[in-house]
């Protein structure tokens, strides 16, 4: 039951199957949810919230990389590796966020296709 709640917690508005009434779970909490229902009771609300936070972080990473790219173009960049590291970090963060979203959508679709 904990696992199912954890998965449902990933989907906004899906609530939980049990009486725990979990509003949702962060993706990380969802992964731990298989060990117990408390994993589904995440501190800060829905998957929507956590993905918004993730996107905010992603945005910060990317604007950092963008700023360094501008510096590279204008000749103000002091260290080449600063830009390439920032770019790699932004790339990874994007990949990560996209994966989060993909898996949430996949789980949502799986549940929507469930025979009732």
């Amino acid at each position, binding site marked *: 039951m904990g696992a199912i709640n954890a998965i449902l917690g990933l989907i906004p508005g899906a609530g939980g199957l049990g009486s725990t009434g979990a509003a949702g779970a962060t993706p990380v909490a969802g992964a731990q949810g298989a060990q117990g229902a408390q994993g589904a009771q995440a501190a800060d609300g829905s998957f929507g919230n956590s993905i918004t936070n993730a996107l905010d*972080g992603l945005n910060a990473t990317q604007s950092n990389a963008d700023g360094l790219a501008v510096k590279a173009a204008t000749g103000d960049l002091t260290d080449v590796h600063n830009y390439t590291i920032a770019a790699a970090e932004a790339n990874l*963060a994007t990949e990560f966020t996209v994966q989060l979203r993909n898996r949430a959508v996949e789980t949502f679709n799986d549940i929507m296709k469930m025979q009732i």
Partner: protein
Amino acid sequence: MSLFPIFQTTGSGLYANRVWMDAVADNLANMNTAKPFDQPAFQARYVEVQSVPGEGNDPVGVGGGVKVVGAQFGSAEGQLRYDPTNPLANKDGLVRYPDIDLADQMTQLIQAQRSYQLNLTVIDRARESYQQAIGIGVK
């Protein structure tokens, strides 16, 4: 603590080694900087670094990279050479040259360069590992 902390750590290593190469470049560029007898010679630059302690929530005491804290200077006495045709020479024909050993500087340059490459390799491996971690369970 960022999501990918290795980049911060390795970035600091890259920076420190770049500064080291800068110092060696400066030393080599000034190898033949002559000074009059009564002035200090060009002093070789040695970069001073310190390890950075890990961030607060780090459980096992792994540090957070390296930090450039300043430069130390080599001998101001330099070496005196007899070069009477040099306009800077004193009445005995002595000119002060920096006390910089070319072989030593080249060795340092190789060390710095290799060390820089090493940190780049770490970044590459870390990126690969993160990517694989992100890809766990992808169909």
